[in-house]
Structures are given as structure tokens and as C-alpha cells.
């Protein structure tokens, strides 16, 4: 059974780095708590954020928007650039050619998949 609620588990920031593991669907209805969590992490000093999408089954345009928003926020803080290209096919549109350019510029935000 698909989990339609987005669960997140944040790893304690260390040296301004943190990992947030997501489970469920990264879609419009599930975004508000995740947005709050990301803001909280950035506010707490996180500058390098890895988003683990290994257990995410669906990402819509609003989900993409949230990831870009996180990227933009982190970029303003001057975090270092890094990118993880390992993204599951069915986590598209992250991985589709038409939309991957949006993430080729992603620096501070690492997108981790299988």
C-alpha cells in the first residue's frame, strides 16, 4: 500500500551538513510540513542538505518546486556545491531529460536515490 503522507526523518546536523530521508509522495498536499522542516534546518545552520528520495514514489511539479526552493535558500547562505546523480527512474520527473536541467544546477542540495 502506498503511503500518501510524507514522512521525514532528519539526521542531526553535523558540521552544517544534514540528511533528510523522505518516505511517501512528494506532492502538493504533503509539502507544508516538509517545507517547515527544511526551513527549520536551514535556520538551525544547515548549509549542506542531502534529500534522500530512495523511498519516494511520486514527485510532482510542486515537489520539484519545493526542492528548488530549498536549493535557492541554501544557495543564499553560501553552502558548497555538490550533486548526487543517482536518482531512481521512477522518481521522475527528477530524472527525466526534460527536467533534469533543473537539478544539474543544484549545488547545496544533494538529491540521493538508489
Amino acid at each position, binding site marked *: 500500500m*502506498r503511503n*500518501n503522507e510524507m514522512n521525514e526523518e532528519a539526521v542531526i546536523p553535523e558540521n552544517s551538513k544534514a540528511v533528510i530521508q523522505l518516505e511517501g509522495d512528494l*506532492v*502538493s*498536499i504533503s509539502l507544508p510540513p516538509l517545507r517547515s522542516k527544511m526551513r527549520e534546518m536551514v535556520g538551525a545552520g544547515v548549509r549542506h542538505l542531502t534529500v534522500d528520495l530512495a523511498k519516494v*514514489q*511520486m514527485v*510532482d*511539479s*510542486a515537489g*520539484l*518546486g*519545493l526542492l*528548488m*526552493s530549498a*536549493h*535557492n535558500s541554501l544557495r543564499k547562505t553560501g553552502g558548497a556545491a555538490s550533486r548526487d546523480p543517482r536518482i531512481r527512474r*521512477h522518481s*521522475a*520527473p527528477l530524472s*527525466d531529460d*526534460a*527536467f533534469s*536541467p*533543473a537539478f*544539474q*544546477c543544484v549545488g547545496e542540495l544533494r538529491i540521493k536515490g538508489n
Partner: protein
Amino acid sequence: VNLGICELRVNLPSTLEAVEEFCKEFRIWRAGNCDELGAFDAELLIREALTNSVVHGCSCDPDKHVYCTLRVKKGRFLMVVKDEGRGFNWRAAWDRKAPVSDTSGRGIGILRHYANRVRFNPEGNTVTLMKRF
């Protein structure tokens, strides 16, 4: 919702919760009627079209409604979504490519990428999508 035929018609209140409930129904319907249809692509199209209608077309007003028809016939998945909003200027958005750092503006691009055909009515409050499978 009749899960036994290859056509599904629903009338949803204009809320994101209703979109979620319908997506659950769709998974059951797809599995029972057209499991050859790619689950991810079809659900993403449904989500984008319905969410656009709910959020942009009806401003999440639960007193307004979104009408959705899904039909599978001869290797084609057809989807029509109509809302009670005033529509929008889809022509202006048709070829827009969101700059990489934008946090919105990818919805129509996703529809065009994942569907084989996308058609809006002149007012922009009805979209028809077709996907071959």
C-alpha cells in the same frame, strides 16, 4: 465510481484531499482495467491536471468542483479535467520553460512531456490529455 468498466467519471470538490483520494481510486482502477498503462506516468498526469484545476482554477474553494473523466480504449488513455474556474491564458504558458531556479511553472511542461497530446479549451478551464500505451 464504477471500477468494472474502462471509463471512470468523478465529480470532486476542489480540495487537495480530494485529489489524493481520487489518486488512490485511480491506482485500483488502473490495476484492474489497464495495468499495461504505466503507473507513474498516468498518475503524474492526473495529479498535475487535477492539482492545476484545484489550486489555480478554483483557488482551493471546496464549494467549487472539478470534473474528471478517464477512459481507456485501444491502447489509449484519455483524460478530461474540467473545473468551475474562469480558466487561464494557456497560450501564454504553452511554450514557457521555467528557468532552472524557479519554484513553480513546470506543470504544463510536465503535461506536455508525459502525454502524447494536450489540448485546452479556449477558456483554459478544460484540459484533455491523451497517452498511448
